């Protein structure tokens, strides 16, 4: 299953990367400038690329916007299969995975559409900071207030985004476990569950988020220190990058699995007793 996630991520990224690769090859593939890029990014080249190839890059904007959106929806699609595997606690089987992904995608997509206002609310909570700032410091605060306020807003924005992900995750778990077709109900359940068990649910998601940031902090200095690497070093760098992404996918699925476990442990027994027939039925079917 991890391979599926990883390959999907790689393929979608390649869809964006390949046009850039061909563009770079065409404009500078056989130049010493490109040879220098084996070391550090030459800013002369970077600026010339942006300015002289602006029209070409601009024409690719649709790709840059559309592909990530499709990837995100595809992730939504795959989560149906992933959650089913974890909920049913069975070994991965392609037929089960893909069939369940297809089964739940329609509901997940509707869930996503219903969740957009929820996202808007969670994300916009950060702007309360502006109101608080005005209340305390007036309409003309010093720049240090504005600066720190902006960071606080970014932080609250991130919390809002992570909360939204949590709500979506638990709503999807609810849909799979209960075979729920009423997506609004599932959304509401996701909201209730998340806020009722906020700290436990939030920590897991936060860990995944922080690992992503931490990897960047480690990755960038390493790449920057490689001024003129050989072909072998470049290859190793590529492998390290892909290992990182593979581990990320693993962590994502670990998160799903942990969320399912948490859901099961936090959901009251009487609720589980109600749910069990459905889960058992799923188990029987899968077996």
């Amino acid at each position, binding site marked *: 299953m991890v391979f599926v996630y990883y390959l999907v*991520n790689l393929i*979608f*990224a390649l869809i*964006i*990367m390949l046009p850039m*690769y061909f563009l*770079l090859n065409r*404009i*500078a*593939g*056989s*130049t*010493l*400038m*490109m*040879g*220098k*890029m*084996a070391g550090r*990014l030459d*800013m*002369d*080249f970077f*600026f*010339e690329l*942006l*300015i*002289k190839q602006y029209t070409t890059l601009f024409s690719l904007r649709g790709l840059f916007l559309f*592909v*990530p959106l499709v*990837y*995100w929806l595809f992730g939504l699609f795959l989560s149906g299969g992933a959650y089913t595997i974890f909920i049913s606690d069975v070994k991965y089987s392609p037929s089960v995975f893909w069939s369940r992904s297809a089964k739940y995608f329609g509901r997940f997509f509707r869930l996503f559409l219903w969740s957009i206002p929820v996202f808007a609310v969670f994300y916009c909570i950060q702007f309360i900071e502006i109101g608080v700032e005005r209340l305390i410091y007036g309409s*003309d605060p*010093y*720049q*240090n*207030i*504005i*600066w720190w306020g*902006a960071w606080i*807003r*970014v932080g609250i924005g*991130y919390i809002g*985004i*992570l909360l939204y992900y949590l709500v979506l995750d638990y709503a999807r778990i609810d849909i799979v476990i209960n075979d729920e077709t009423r997506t609004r109900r599932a959304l509401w359940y996701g909201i209730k569950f998340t806020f009722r068990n906020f700290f436990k649910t939030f920590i897991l998601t936060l860990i995944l*988020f922080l690992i*992503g*940031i931490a990897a*960047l902090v480690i990755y*960038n*200095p390493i790449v*920057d220190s490689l001024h003129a*690497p050989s*072909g072998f070093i*470049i290859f190793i*760098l*590529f492998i390290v*990058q892909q290992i990182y*992404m593979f581990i990320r996918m693993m962590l*994502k699925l670990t998160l799903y699995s942990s969320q399912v476990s948490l859901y099961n442990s936090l959901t009251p027994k009487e609720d589980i007793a109600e749910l069990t027939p459905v889960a058992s039925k799923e188990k029987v079917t899968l077996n």
Partner: protein
Amino acid sequence: MRSKLEVLIIVWLMILQNHNNTQAQLKIFPQPLSPRIANYDIDVKLDLKKRMLNGHEKVKWFNKSNDVINELQFHLYLNAFRNNKSTFMKELGGSMRLSKMDKDGWGFIDVTSIKFPSGEDLLSKIEFIHPDDDNVDDKTVFHLLLPKSMQPGDSIIFNIDFVAVLPQPPFARTGAKEEYFFVGQWFPKVGVYIDSKWNCHQYHKNSEFFADFGVYNVKITVPEKNIVGATGLESEVKNNGDGTATHFYHAEDVHDFAWTTSPEFVEFKGKVQDVDIRVLMQPDHAYQGTRHLEAAKVAVEYHQNWYGDYPYPNLTVVDPRRDAGGSGGMEYPTLITAGTTYGLPDGLQLVEMVIIHEFGHNYWYHLLASNEFEESWLDEGINSYTENQIIADHYGTDGNMLDCLGIKINDLQFQCAQYISGPDLDPTIRNAWQYYNGGSYGINSYMKPTLFLTTLQNYLGKETMQKIMRTYSERLRFKHPKTQDFISIANEVAAQSVPPHLDEPEYAKAQSSTPAVSFGSKQNLDWFFSQALYSNATLDYSVDAIKSTEVQKEKGFDFTFSTEDTIAGKEIKEGIEDKDSTTLFLNEINVRRLGSFKFPVEVEIIFEQGEKIREKWDGQELWKKFRYITPVKVISATVDPDHKIPLDVNYSNNSKTVKTQTSGLVKLSAHFLFWVQFIIDMPEFLNLLSFFPSIF
């Protein structure tokens, strides 16, 4: 015995006398450094609530020309902000310097009275004029018909009362925001009489200023608690007992006077060489005070060491208030404005760049008082070039503008990037308001001169170029230099620095004692300046093609080897000798001139086994083909291998390799792939970008 009253009167008279003497005795220079044509004694009071200046000005103007003068022309720059019908506002159409005027933020200046010392009223003799366009609504220039002509050598004195309102917020360099005032171009200012006519342009969106040198005595009355910074030296502060204080300033041999006031300034002081430096910081930027001070010291030190003495004893650096950035990044005699933001990282050296740049204007705009309306490059361009040189020398050439998160950008790269976005819209020399657009004004005033002067420096050598700049700075200070003056000095110094027999031998040159204008000559640079300044020609050389084909070595009887002739001449060279080899390669390198700017270039050809050849080409024809027969293949060719020609608009096409540079391509692509993979999987990462709109 005198009565108490008499004693009091005598004491009061003595104090008054002492005060007047203080003003009269304060002398900065033992002898005048400049012609001192336009001299001002100004008394101004600031009304904070109305943003209003009530001023009285005594102007003493000398006719130092050989002409009889019947009128005087004055600038009233603040009338550019009077309404939306001024030439400035019509050209602007919105915001300037990242500022937009408040709805009620208009400003103006009105002359309420103009008289001779005798009391003769001249108000009826003034009339607004429009020397640049037919805009009758523009009131930024007026002329005053004199009742009596002025003969050469005459002087004239006017007493002018004026009232002015500053725009809000500081907009296009001047204005007010809450408690902060930056007051520039605020008084009726005489134009320049030069070349037997008045040079007094209207205020345009893309223009700066032009004025004569003189002596300024300015009394500024502001609230008692306010700190004042201004051109020149402060001789006295007098508390008026009514909540206000009057600051007395004196400046000699300057051609402008600006001032600022705020109760919130935090002062930092320092000294470098013989110059006292005063930095006025905003309270929320005060932690950057030392950074500003150090940058100012670097600026003063380098300019004095490289370009000659800065004759004034002091420099004031002003940090504009938040939301008053329109007053930032500007220069006035002995006073400059910088601009920063809270949280500016140390690796982003914008503060240093701005301060070094704005101080440099004290040389290239102030000491060398060129006409910024008509030849903006002489100030902005030369200054951008010297700023670039100083920053590279002091902070290094790598990442001297930005060095953050693994990204390194230097000042020159940034100038190049801006230049290539519009290199051929206009020739460099053009009236400031007549460029294609604001971007073209910026490119031709700042970036293009930086790049062509750097190119010239690399061509002549740093020592020669420094001599040119220093000679220009020292010889023409306190005058109004023009482009031709700069070119003449450049030719003079270059001719002295490069003896005729060491001039480029590849280029045709005259044999006479006076060097002819021969292309590529280092003794006469007219061929260079005619392209750089008076045309919109772009410089772009490229390696168009490179290949190796196998040829058989001569064998047998009557064998002659021939290759195709080229229009530029047969270029076949015997390269690397290897008598044992039976295989030879015909290596072909085609170099093209894609732009219309012609410049001598070097071409470096690299063969297998590491052998290198450097060729020189005068760059005149549209192309040049190099042919080599060698036992090894060529692997790459580069035009301008040492990157000495930053004026080249496309450096990516300067080289070609026979094989694709796979390692670079793969690394770049892999890096890009990784980032795409990361961001599509973690799109919330982009939320970090929401930080920036919040603070700007």
